[in-house]
């Protein structure tokens, strides 16, 4: 790789208008020479402002260098010239996501997906941001008493929406991972002891209570009550939250 870099650098030195700067910039980035890559690409795009691929790559190098504002400017200009540039759309999607502007991020990723529907990276980013957006909406509607005490998890041990916070620490993922085992064991115990289907589990300990239920076959809802909260109160809230969760799950399902 270093030989190739040397050849390209020589060529560029002899012929500064050569388009080999794109390959050289990409190789320098690959070997971790971000400063070199930025310098070569900055020079190149200044000479060839219409070279969309080079500018998209330049945006990536700027992002690597932590120059988010510059990367944003570069990619914005790229999509003005070429609205179908997937790299720039991905980059803008990421920058908006970092800035907490989920709607805008989604818009760029939607565009990227329409151009490259099989791009796994885009698909994953898109579905993650969509879920986050939806979870914000659900948490807002289902948890009027504030976030951090209610979570819906899927049947594979992952949080779907909402979240659990204990002593300022997000415990959602850990709890979600164990919920699958609880739910499976509850179903088995109820069946084998001839108690029919299980409806919910409530636990009480020194630091509070948990209420676990299954709003749908493929989800588990858990509500957490602090030390002063009565289990019966959590149980009542769980009932209405289960209804909301069921509706949300039904709406989210792709036919």
């Amino acid at each position, binding site marked *: 790789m270093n030989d190739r870099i040397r050849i390209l650098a020589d060529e560029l030195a002899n012929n500064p208008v050569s388009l080999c700067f794109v390959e050289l910039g990409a190789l320098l980035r690959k070997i971790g020479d971000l400063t070199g890559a930025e310098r070569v690409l900055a020079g190149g795009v200044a000479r060839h402002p219409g070279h969309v691929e080079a500018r998209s790559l330049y945006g990536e190098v700027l992002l690597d260098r932590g120059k988010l504002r510059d990367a944003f400017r570069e990619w914005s200009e790229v999509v003005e010239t070429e609205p179908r540039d997937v790299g720039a759309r991905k980059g803008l999607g990421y920058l908006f996501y970092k800035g907490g502007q989920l709607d805008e991020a989604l818009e760029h990723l939607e565009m990227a997906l329409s151009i490259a529907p099989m791009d796994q990276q885009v698909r994953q980013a898109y579905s993650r941001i969509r879920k986050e957006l939806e979870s914000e909406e659900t948490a807002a509607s289902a948890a009027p008493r504030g976030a951090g005490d209610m979570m819906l998890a899927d049947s594979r041990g992952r949080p779907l929406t909402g979240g659990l916070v204990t002593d300022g620490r997000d415990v959602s993922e850990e709890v979600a991972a*164990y919920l699958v085992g609880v739910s499976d064991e509850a179903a088995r115990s109820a069946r084998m002891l001839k*108690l*029919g289907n299980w409806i919910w589990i409530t*636990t009480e*300990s020194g630091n509070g209570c*948990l209420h676990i239920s299954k709003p749908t076959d493929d989800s588990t809802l858990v509500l957490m009550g602090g030390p002063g909260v009565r289990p019966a109160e959590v149980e009542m809230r769980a009932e209405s939250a289960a209804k909301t969760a069921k509706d949300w799950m039904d709406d989210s399902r792709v036919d």
Partner: protein
Amino acid sequence: MTAVSINFDRLLGRVTGIRGVVGAVVLDAEDGLVIAESILGGIRVNAVAALAASMYRRVSHTTKAAGHGPPDFVQLQAENGVLIALPGSCGTILAVIGELDLNIGLVKIELNKILVRQ
């Protein structure tokens, strides 16, 4: 009969005397094996012990992950009845099977009294 088993028998007698309680089992929390039992026919005693221990263990993982520590009381509510698990002394669990309309509040009060007196 040993002193320990006499205590368990007395405890089980009092628990099964509570209205709506169908049966009760004292079990080893780690092994899930029966230590003492008082249960009506038709229910597999060893199933109650093994499953209650397993459920208590799995629920404990969850409550610990949530920062709540091990549970003092676990209630599984099902369509046709209730399974309750409470940790006892020396690594035991008391599992109680109750009817659907079991008065949980009363059960808790009674169990507290019984467990304190043991």
